[in-house]
């Protein structure tokens, strides 16, 4: 099995290189930090959207689960990102400037807003029940609801900016996929958030969560299929080696979990199976995308061959 280094022999691919060495540097991001963050950020973002809709439709039990999931996902995700830095003690330098040309700068501000707002929304909900009804409870609840409403904006951004983050690099399997990756990530995030809400909400109130999960699984499956088809040669890292195995497993878990979510209804067993499959599927997708990027950077073919083709098409 070809997995590392020059997976495409030069003669076969018809290109030349310097001792088969990569042209670009592979991403330095680690496992499990980065892919777990991608999962948690997506889960947090969609949970916020769900919390807003649950609040508006009066499904308070589901709203509470989603508020808590959103806050926890953003907080743990941000901690993972800080731990990922070469100089973690300088993590606040992320908010030193606002740079529209840097998706990581834009994303840091989005994540800062998402974690602050979702924490406010969740803690208002939690402490509201503890305070005596006559005290500051109504005020607190109103503030929490305002924060919640604001996450209706930051949530979808948190769930999708990460696609721009990885695509805005020289890594061929990421950059060339910049059209489909946001949809893949959005679908994966919906499946993840729907799964958490399904598992953590009484089944009678979890119908919308099951619908979100099923829709997300469908979006993720469709986006992944379109992406691999359109990428052609540059998409090979998504099909081969370790990344290929991860993406294949993700495809099965997500499709299976999505179908189960659609039929689970109030069945305890089906809900549990579906929720676990979707969670595992979303995680596999994130690990798979990261690994595909690394593989496509490590093999000079993916950098050189498309550029050569572009040059010969132009001349």
């Amino acid at each position, binding site marked *: 099995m070809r997995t590392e280094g020059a997976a495409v022999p030069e003669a076969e691919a018809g290109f030349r290189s310097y001792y088969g060495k990569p042209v670009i540097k592979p991403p330095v991001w680690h496992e499990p930090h980065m892919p777990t963050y991608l999962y948690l950020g997506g889960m947090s973002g969609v949970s916020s959207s769900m919390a807003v809709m*649950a609040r508006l439709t009066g499904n*308070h039990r589901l709203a509470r689960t989603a508020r808590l999931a959103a806050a926890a996902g953003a907080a743990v995700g941000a901690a993972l990102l800080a731990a990922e830095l070469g100089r973690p003690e300088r993590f606040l330098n992320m908010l030193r400037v606002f740079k529209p*040309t*840097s998706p990581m700068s834009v994303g840091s501000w989005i994540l800062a807003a998402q974690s602050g707002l979702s924490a406010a929304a969740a803690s208002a909900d939690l402490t509201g029940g503890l305070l005596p009804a006559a005290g500051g409870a109504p005020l607190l609840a109103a503030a929490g609801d305002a924060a919640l409403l604001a996450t209706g904006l930051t949530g979808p951004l948190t769930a999708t900016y990460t696609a721009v983050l990885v695509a805005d690099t020289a890594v061929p399997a990421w950059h060339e996929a910049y059209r489909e990756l*946001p949809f893949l990530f959005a679908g994966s995030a919906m499946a993840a958030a729907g799964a958490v809400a399904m598992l953590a909400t009484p089944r009678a109130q979890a119908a919308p969560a099951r619908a979100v999960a099923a829709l997300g699984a469908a979006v993720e499956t469709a986006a992944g299929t379109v992406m691999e088809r359109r990428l052609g040669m540059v998409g090979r890292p998504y099909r081969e080696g370790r990344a290929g195995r991860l993406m294949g497993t993700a495809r099965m878990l997500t499709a299976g979990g999505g179908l189960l979510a659609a039929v689970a209804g109030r069945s305890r067993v089906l809900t549990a199976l579906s929720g676990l499959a979707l969670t595992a599927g979303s995680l596999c997708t994130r690990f798979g995308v990261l690994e595909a990027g690394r593989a496509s950077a490590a093999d000079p073919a993916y950098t050189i061959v498309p550029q050569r083709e572009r040059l010969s098409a132009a001349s």
Partner: protein
Amino acid sequence: MAERMGFFTDTSVCIGCKACEVACKEWNQLPDDGFVFEATSYDNTGMLGASTWRHVAFIEQSRPVRVEGDEGSVDRWLMSSDVCKHCTHAACLDVCPTGALFRTEFDTVVVQSDICNGCGYCVPACPYGVIDRREGDGRAWKCTMCYDRQLGGLEPACAKACPTDSIQFGPLDELRERAEERVARLRADGHEEARLYGESPSDGVGGAGAFFLLLDEPEVYGLPPDPVVTTRDLPAMWRWAGAAALSMAGAVALAFLRGGALPNHQASVRGGTR
């Protein structure tokens, strides 16, 4: 702003002595790269990285070349000293979230090591694989075109040390003219394969501040044949992400409106506990 300064590396006169690598390491106090040779060549640094800001590539080709007055042939040995391109449109600088990477008054691209938090985003962004994070130190490092020496009116250490003037330092406009003349002369002498790399302001990075005269395809030297700054597509990337964000919000809303209408969904009736 001072004049734009640059490097013209004429690989046709490079003798592979690595004086540039050593001078760079001495001046910038860079750690060694270990002592492992690439394949069967004299290359012990492999490629540019956090501690390798000049990299001399050795390419041994079995392709024969004509030698004056000799019907036989010799194998060709290409050598080339690679360096950060100090791109006009530098991806590393564009994506840096902290502002650690900046453009100097000499139009070069430099990392401020007191600001870099080691996020590593610049590393996969560079289309040439130049910048890297140094393990242990945690920050990103690359060639500064000897910013400190330039501020003191000195030429960079590598150019100073190069015994054959393969590395030339000066105002970029002058270097481009000189390079055009050199490539024309080599071609007139029968070296049809001589070409400039990175000199054109119309290329994918808007022209490199450090450009090269090569005797073969760029990829043979480990250089990308047609690099493009990734941020060129950034507006399109945000448009696709925006569409995905909107679709996602819409899909969630749909799930609730449909889910709320389900007959067995009593909990959506108003009056749940606070």
